[in-house]
């Protein structure tokens, strides 16, 4: 699957963002509970304060009753009691207004209210007694008031303890929440650090490093080392870039090779023309001289044989020099619309007798639908002649030449393909690389100049076509010639 760089960085940022959002939501949920608990804590502190005040109010409530019985008791103590009693009621009211959260509270508050009522009734009896001071009944009543008050104070303390217990529970819960928050912050930070680090490593591996490698190789290619290839196959922009770069390098290499080849051929052509011309004159002198000497000296068999051999050598030199001149020529080409099969047949007519002598069979496999091509017939004849003579020379013991023609489409161009197969000795891989080089020949002894295929390639390339050779030692050789169908002058 193709994953682009922007998609990679994007998904990484999305992951990072999602992590932050999840962390924030968790944090806010936990924090919400915490705030609730803080409120509750304040609430309980207030409640405990109220309970304390109630306890104190009960302690104060019995004082006017006791004071009333002391010698010289003030009759105003009754008013005092009423004031303190309403204070107690006020506290009850405040507590109820605050809300009775727990069942324990309701029970205790009911008990406290009962105690308050009992105290009020007992106090009324005391205040109603005539001559209460020193009165035995009054003493007994006061003791009862004290007892009820003690119980009430005890209840209030119980109430206080209940509040404290709740307070403690909430406090512990808050501490737990704090621990959870600490943990969350720690985990979140750790995860963030991991995510950022992993992201950096990932981006560096898949983006930065390939770009660095690419940069280094581009530099190297820039310095002229075209054999370097970039080994990055990732399915993203970098991979595309690497592939494009490799293609560019390959094309550059091809172009460079072509250029080198063209330059080589051009300079060879100039050299060949010069050498040919310079050699022809001494050769003409040698020919004339030999002819004269031949006429002047007595003729016996050996002298005649010697002259014949000398003349043959001169003729051979002349053929080689003519080849050189052909090679150097770029004489005007004459294109005409022709059937490539007819050109091949012309050559076969010339050679079939020779091929027959060597027991070489010719097999024709022509595709009749190939349109006519724009060809320089003379030059193309030379090409097929070279190829067929090479095939003949590869099969001294006889064999078969198969000539096949077909049409193909390569890179949007319609091409006529002509293949010439032989069943000869084949060409070793080392030599196969050089067969199109000028002066490369394996036929020195039989007078090969090493220019035939080189000239043939020049001609095929002049037609904007290509020629190449495949061979397997001992099995045979195939020459493949491709010519564009729409090429004209």
């Amino acid at each position, binding site marked *: 699957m193709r994953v682009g760089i922007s998609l990679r960085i994007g998904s990484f940022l999305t992951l990072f963002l999602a992590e932050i959002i999840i962390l924030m939501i968790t944090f806010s949920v936990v924090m919400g509970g915490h705030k609730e608990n803080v409120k509750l804590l304040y609430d309980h502190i207030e409640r405990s304060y109220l309970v304390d005040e109630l306890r104190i109010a009960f302690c104060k409530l019995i004082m006017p009753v006791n004071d009333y019985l002391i010698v010289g008791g003030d009759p105003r103590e009754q008013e005092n009691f009423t004031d303190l009693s309403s204070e107690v009621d006020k506290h009850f009211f405040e507590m109820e207004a605050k809300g009775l959260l727990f069942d324990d509270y309701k029970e205790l508050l009911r008990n406290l209210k009962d105690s308050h009522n009992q105290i009020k009734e007992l106090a009324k009896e005391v205040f109603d007694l005539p001559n209460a001071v020193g009165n035995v009944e009054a003493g007994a009543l006061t003791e009862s008031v004290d007892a009820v008050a003690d119980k009430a104070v005890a209840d209030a303390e119980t109430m206080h303890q209940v509040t404290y217990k709740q307070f403690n529970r909430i406090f512990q819960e808050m501490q737990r929440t704090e621990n959870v928050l600490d943990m969350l912050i720690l985990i979140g930070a750790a995860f963030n650090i991991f995510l950022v680090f992993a992201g950096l490593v990932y981006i560096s591996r898949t983006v930065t490093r390939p770009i660095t490698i690419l940069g280094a190789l581009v530099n190297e290619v820039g310095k002229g080392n075209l054999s370097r290839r970039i080994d990055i196959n990732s399915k993203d922009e970098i991979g595309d870039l690497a592939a494009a770069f490799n293609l560019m390098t390959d094309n550059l290499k091809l172009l460079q090779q072509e250029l080198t080849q063209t330059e080589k051929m051009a300079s060879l052509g100039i050299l060949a023309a010069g050498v*040919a011309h310079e050699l*022809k004159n001494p*050769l003409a*002198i040698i020919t*004339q001289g030999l*002819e004269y000497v031949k006429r002047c000296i007595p003729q016996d068999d050996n002298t005649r044989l010697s002259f014949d051999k000398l003349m043959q050598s001169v003729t051979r030199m002349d053929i080689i020099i003519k080849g050189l*001149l052909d090679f150097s020529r770029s*004489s*005007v080409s004459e294109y005409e619309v022709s059937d490539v099969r007819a050109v091949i047949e012309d050559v076969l007519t010339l050679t079939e007798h020779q091929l027959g002598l060597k027991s070489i069979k010719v097999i024709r496999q022509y595709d009749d639908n190939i349109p006519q091509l724009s060809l320089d017939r003379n030059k193309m004849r030379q090409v097929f002649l070279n190829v067929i003579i090479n095939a003949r020379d590869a099969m001294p013991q006889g064999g078969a030449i198969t000539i096949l023609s077909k049409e193909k489409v390569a890179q949007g161009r319609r091409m006529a393909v002509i293949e010439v197969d032989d069943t000869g000795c084949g060409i070793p891989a080392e030599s196969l690389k050089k067969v199109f080089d000028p002066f490369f020949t394996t036929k020195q002894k039989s007078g090969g100049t090493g220019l035939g295929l080189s000239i043939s390639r020049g001609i095929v390339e002049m037609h904007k076509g290509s020629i190449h050779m495949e061979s397997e030692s001992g099995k045979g050789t195939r020459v493949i010639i491709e010519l564009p169908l729409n090429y004209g002058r």
Partner: protein
Amino acid sequence: MNKKVLFIDDETDFLFFVKLNLDKTGRFLVYTADDPQEGIKIAKKERPDIIFLDICMPQMSGGSVAELLSEDRGTSGIPVVFLTALVKQDEIESAGGSIGARDYLAKPVLVEDIIAKIDSVLG
């Protein structure tokens, strides 16, 4: 009567052997010149039946020599055969085409070819 044949070529050794070979046939009167100017002088003086002219000479090209010969009333009628170390017909034509000379011989050349050429040109 022997035909007068003139060879103009900067290769003196070639001229030496050609003259020897043709003299040996006894059919020709052979003149040679290794310098084009001298060749023109001989042509004007001796009025040869046929002139063999090398195309590539350092002093003057065979084409120019042929042109000079055609401009002179005395020599304009003499047929010219180009001798050349260049092979192709089109090159012969570009060097001599303007003066109508079509005949050529490519070096190296055999004595029998020279004689055949003389016979075919002079009929």
